[in-house]
């Protein structure tokens, strides 16, 4: 089909800058964002700010409003109230111009299963206004980056879950967007694919891409994000670096499963000097909050050994999303409305 009809300079969409934005404006800035679905207030006054080149993680349980926030910021949904600007462009008024500068990899991979991997990327490139040859070249480049070269000519329906995610992410990167939105990028991936995706996101960050990602996992937010915003029921209930949030949680938990439950008082006494708060025991497991990770386990083993306490199992448990929630809200993270997740 003819390409002479394409008015755009193919390079235009690939320019990696913030042409329309005043230079000091943050990459993403959100004020008082509200979005309701009938009775449900999916977003209830969200404020966010992401400096250029930074990675922000929206951390929250199912139904917290993460996807809704991403959909508003990527021009898929119009907010009921509030404003949101991305690279200085209003998500409602300047939607068309904004779409040239953002990439989205949604919660579910949006790939055409009947097209090949390469076919998908060529299609997306051409819809950005690139000529076929340029779109093809860019597609091959991305397939190489994402280790999909071997599968380039296979229909996407033959891809594994991890490959689909990678193809979807590649599609989001076709026009080299300065701001990238990733909605639960690793949910449902096996540990190896998860790690690979983390590395990809780190590379993008190193190249100066601003990233907003959503996740249900504290360790993911911890590893990738400069700043974490904890969302619950449509509002941001805490924000800060992962260290700041962990401080509010009081560090990690040491858990010791005893061989003999009646030895609990002895074990508690032996371990008490390691924590600022007294240890607690439940069902033969002694647990206490500890600060540093280095040497903690060795020290605990030594102390228990000296006290003559037999141990079945012992380990450090990193704080989970549940711990964050428990400490921030006093209620556990509820897995709300799983069936609504198809939106």
């Amino acid at each position, binding site marked *: 089909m*003819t390409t002479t*009809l*394409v008015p755009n300079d193919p390079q235009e969409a690939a320019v990696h800058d913030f042409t329309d934005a005043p230079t000091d404006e943050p990459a993403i800035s959100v004020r008082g964002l509200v979005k309701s679905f009938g009775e449900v207030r999916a977003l209830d006054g969200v404020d966010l700010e992401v400096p250029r080149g930074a990675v922000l993680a929206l951390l929250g349980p199912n139904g917290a409003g993460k996807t809704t926030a991403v959909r508003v910021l990527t021009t898929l949904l119009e907010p009921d109230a509030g404003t949101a600007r991305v690279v200085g462009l209003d998500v409602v008024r300047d939607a*068309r*111009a904004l779409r040239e500068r953002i990439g*989205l990899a949604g919660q579910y991979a949006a790939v055409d299963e*009947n097209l090949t991997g390469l076919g998908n990327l060529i299609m997306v490139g*051409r*819809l950005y*206004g690139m000529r076929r040859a340029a779109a093809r070249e860019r597609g091959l480049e991305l397939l190489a980056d994402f280790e999909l070269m071997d599968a380039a000519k296979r229909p996407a329906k033959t891809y594994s879950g991890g490959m689909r995610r990678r193809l979807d992410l590649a599609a989001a990167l076709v026009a080299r967007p300065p701001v990238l939105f990733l909605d639960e990028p690793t949910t449902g991936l096996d540990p190896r694919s998860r790690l690979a995706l983390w590395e990809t996101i780190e590379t993008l960050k190193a190249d100066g891409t601003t990233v907003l990602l959503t996740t249900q996992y504290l360790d993911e937010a911890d590893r990738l994000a400069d700043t974490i915003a904890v969302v619950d029921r449509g509002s941001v209930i805490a924000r800060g670096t992962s260290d700041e949030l962990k401080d509010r949680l009081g560090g990690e938990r040491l858990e010791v499963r005893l061989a003999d439950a009646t030895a609990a008082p002895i074990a508690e006494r032996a371990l008490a000097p390691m924590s600022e708060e007294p240890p607690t025991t439940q069902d033969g497991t002694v647990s206490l909050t500890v600060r540093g990770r280095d040497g903690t386990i060795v020290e605990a083993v030594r102390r228990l050994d000296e006290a003559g306490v037999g141990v079945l199992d012992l380990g450090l448990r990193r704080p989970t999303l549940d711990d964050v929630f428990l400490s921030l809200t006093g209620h556990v993270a509820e897995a709300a409305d799983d069936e609504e997740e198809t939106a």
Partner: protein
Amino acid sequence: MSRLVSDTLVLSERNLSRLRTAPDLLIAFTVQPVMFVLLFAFVFGGAIQTPGYDYIDFLIPGIIVQNIAFGGFVTALGLNEDVTKGLIDRFRTLPMARAAVLAGRTLADVVTNLLSLLILLATALIIGFSFDAGAGEIVAGIGLLMLFGYAFSWVFALLGLMVSSPESANSLGFLAVFPLTFISSAFVPVESMPGGLAWFAEINPFTIVVDAMRALWLDAPAGNAVWGAVVWSLVIMAIFAPLAVRRYRLAAAR
């Protein structure tokens, strides 16, 4: 505007590429209509009286119209998949012309309709169909078929956007369109039907389009059939295209 044209071409090319990778669809467009022609011509042909025509000549315009009307099925299935699998979210984050998604689908149907028309005509000529028409009328008939098929693509577009799965698009579409095509002059003369059915067949747009095709290709008395068929096609489009566009907007902004 030129963006709309180029994006529409990109997407209809994408929709057509499916014919290459999904052989089941190609079979639906080629083998199935041929099978229908052969079954009707040789199984029912001897039993159905069509005064003034050989049954083959009578049958071919009817079965071609039926086939073209069903051509829009690909649009129903394809759009349904785009919505349920989230592909329209990808499209909607791209700086492309929004109308191109629907335009690309319906345009691809025109191409597949032409393909199945050519195959049907070739089969028809082999088993003894003969035109009683000049080149101009033959071409006008093809034009009318394409217009009518395009109008039905919008009916199927709406259907594909309203149902929850490709399977239900399939069965609902069949349920709605199949009886319409049979209670018409496509396969048997309307005069041979009982009162109520004959009345319905008389006003059925399919009858009008089939009669128009017979007027163009077989030199049957035209009456107002040809103009009637054009008007019907435009009316169907005028009703269903805006409905489909509206439904698309709703589905996309969930």
